């Protein structure tokens, strides 16, 4: 599908082809709503089911049954009648539900009566000393390469961090025949105290048995050390990993301390967000149907708050049911109560996992010369000193230090900057707030922008 082949408007635009987006688009299209799904990757699946239609990793044991559950979602979307466009980068969404999208170098503005943002999560920044050295990457990036290309980490590999996804990736690497020298577990010991009231729910949740099995599987093959500091050291490339438990030579360090909602598009669209103290991130303010504060725009999946892939699909369905009911009240939709029941079961173990894997302050609020903003090379010290000088928020900080103004649009530093300002000024991230996000939320070339159809532009100029 090329940009020129798209209609100028659809009933529903779904943004993101992970579990939430696939489930939402399928349900809506089957109910007879004209639906387009824009996904920026070459194939659908999002991060959790990345490469689900094309992965070279055909041994199903390696990526596990939870991964292959994505196949059904992808097939369902394919059969649903939704227009699924891969390689489609959505770079703007405004409150009037005009979506700016680029496909193969050509841009279009497409209107929708409803929009479901399903842009999922991203890894939480992990700003340790040396995190920008070649040889240091996120666990998520390593998992992307494994799923999409079937490639394993090369050389002496160390993992550091906390959270279920770190253990999952370790297991996937080991099953595929890879080797991990050590795992440095940064989970603070006292987290268990805060998590323990939620243990009963967790034990009853689907996560419990899977999680224990995963831990057992990994710990049987890899030495695991509990650490409270991690640094990557080397000249020009990673040489060793230094923690409070000693030094170890390494060629590759994989970092991961959980995922947070990818809020850029929802913020740029003007939706209200609030700080989630348990998950230490901003998330959109949503109603029971995942409707945001901007009429007609919903946020489903992990972008609505982290709950995992299975929950994401159920959330997508709930948002889609609401969209269908608004657009085509007579259309048949599944019973929302049964969807909600499944969603509740999926969300049950979440509180325990969140409290248990809450990263320590020292891993979120760096000190000294550790970079906070990679794009503009702004250090933690600069941010702290500027906050001390009276800078009260991330938007002023942008103006002072240029942090968040590089090509990543603050994705890799936003939470760090907010938390550093809050820590320094002895206030809360909720008070400090987040960057005002400016479109394009994904960089587009001047040529792409210039390619917006002129006739459409003239029509709009008259209308506005």
């Amino acid at each position, binding site marked *: 599908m090329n940009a020129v082949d798209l209609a100028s408007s659809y009933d529903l635009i779904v943004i993101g082809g992970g579990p939430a987006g696939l489930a939402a688009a399928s349900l809506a299209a089957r109910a007879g709503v004209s639906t387009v799904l824009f996904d920026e990757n070459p194939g659908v699946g999002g991060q959790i089911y990345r490469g689900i239609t094309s992965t070279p990793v055909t041994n199903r044991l390696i990526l596990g049954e939870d991964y292959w559950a994505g196949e059904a979602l992808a097939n369902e979307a394919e059969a649903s009648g939704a227009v699924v466009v891969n390689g489609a980068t959505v770079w703007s969404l405004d409150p009037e539900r*005009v979506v*700016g999208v680029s496909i193969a170098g050509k841009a279009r503005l497409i209107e929708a009566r409803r929009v479901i943002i399903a842009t999922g999560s991203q890894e939480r920044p992990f700003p340790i000393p040396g995190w920008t050295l070649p040889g240091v990457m996120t666990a998520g990036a390593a998992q992307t390469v494994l799923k999409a290309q079937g490639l394993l980490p090369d050389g002496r590999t160390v993992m550091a961090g906390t959270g279920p996804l770190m253990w999952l990736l370790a297991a996937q690497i080991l099953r595929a025949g890879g080797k991990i020298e050590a795992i440095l577990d940064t989970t603070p010991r006292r987290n268990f105290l805060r998590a323990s009231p939620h243990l009963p729910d967790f034990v009853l949740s689907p996560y419990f048995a899977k999680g224990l099995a995963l831990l057992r599987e990994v710990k049987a093959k890899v030495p695991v050390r509990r650490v409270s500091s991690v640094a990557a050291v080397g000249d020009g490339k990673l040489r060793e990993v230094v923690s409070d438990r000693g030094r170890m030579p390494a060629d590759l360090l994989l970092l991961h301390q959980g995922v947070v909602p990818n809020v850029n598009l929802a913020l740029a669209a003007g939706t209200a967000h609030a700080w989630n103290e348990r998950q230490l991130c901003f998330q959109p303010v949503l109603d029971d149907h995942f409707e945001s504060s901007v009429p007609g725009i919903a946020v489903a999946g992990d972008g609505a708050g982290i709950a995992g892939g299975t929950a994401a699909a159920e959330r997508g369905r709930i948002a889609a049911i609401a969209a269908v009911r608004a657009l085509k009240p007579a259309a048949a939709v599944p019973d929302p109560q049964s969807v909600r029941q499944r969603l509740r079961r999926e969300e049950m173990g979440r509180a325990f996992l969140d409290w248990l894997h809450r990263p320590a302050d020292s891993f979120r609020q760096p000190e000294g010369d550790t970079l906070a903003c990679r794009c503009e090379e702004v250090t933690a010290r600069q941010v702290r000193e500027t906050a001390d000088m009276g800078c009260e928020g991330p938007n002023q900080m942008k103006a002072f230090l240029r942090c968040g103004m590089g090509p990543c649009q603050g994705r890799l530093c936003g939470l760090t900057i907010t938390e550093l300002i809050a820590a320094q000024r002895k206030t809360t991230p909720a008070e400090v707030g987040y960057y005002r996000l400016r479109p394009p939320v994904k960089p587009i070339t*001047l*040529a792409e922008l210039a390619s917006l159809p002129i006739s*459409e*532009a003239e029509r709009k100029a008259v209308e506005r």
Partner: protein
Amino acid sequence: MRTADVVIIGGGLHGCSTALHLALRGLRPILVEKDYAGRHASGVNAGGVRQLARHIAEIPLSIASMALWENIEDLVGDDCGFSSHGTVLVAESEQELAGFRARVDDLRLKGFAHEELIDHAELKRLVPAVSDDCPGGVVSRRDGAADPFRTTQAFRRRAIERGAAVIEGVSVTGLARNGSVWRVETSDGPIEAPKVVNAAGAWADRIAAQLGEPVPLEVIAPMLMVSSRVPPFIDPVVILRGRKLSFKQLANGTVVIGGGHLAVSYRDENRTVLDWTKLATSARTVWELFPAMREATIVRAWAGIEARMPDEIPVVGPSRTSEGVFHQFGFSAHGFQLGPATGAVMAELVATGATNLPIDGLGIERFKA
């Protein structure tokens, strides 16, 4: 009850500049800002420091301001990111160039020499990257560019150092004469002062209306976009007349593209919604004029809320109805360069009741119904 010599409403560059100049005269101003200084157009404009192509009525202010810009560090203790590589108005046709020639000749007759007509060769020397089809243009060689937020902050900081008070996050809710002083009601209690300066930008019409002198102020939000870093290829700021474009490369390599296409603005919500169809028009203009930019990446676009008057020149001078109140607003998308000198003029007006710099034609009385 707080008291002051002057209450300034609005913490944009103009309000901050007036606060500084009043403090330099030994007065004690209090500046009240509803958000934070530089939150709107003053902090996020294109940063052009331009004398070129101005309305005749504001040229004296602009020339006075240029002298302050050239020694800005002496005034505010910060170089404000100011650099001077000139502004070039590019003619896209011989016909356009003829019009520019008439303008430059007319300015000469009136005694202004800052605008200079240039031919194709000089244009290519100043802006080698410009398309070969352009026959010439006009240059103002002392013009330049500065960092808008940093500039506004520098004026704010120096004003405070010199004795002004700046109250942020507080809005003015009303003002009324109370004997010999003005009582300015704010969300944080009243302030009394004999003099008031209305520098409230896109919100200034509400103050004027309270004083019984409504103005036809239009709220606008000119859009800008910025590219990722590209190798240095252009020094001066480039502007066009026929098509809306301003174009400049910053020292860090990023290119700021503007020109006055407007976003939809919601002043009560501090919110703007960009119009990508118009930004695409700018992109097409750049595509044609600067082929080197075609593969550059646009990383961010935004708009700052400000005021435009129907005649596109500001309101500067005393209130028509209310003694002790002075207006300084409506800079119509080109007020940044005027900030330093307009603050000085306002301070002179407030302190002495008159100003040596001509501000004829800028008074609020021109909107009398």
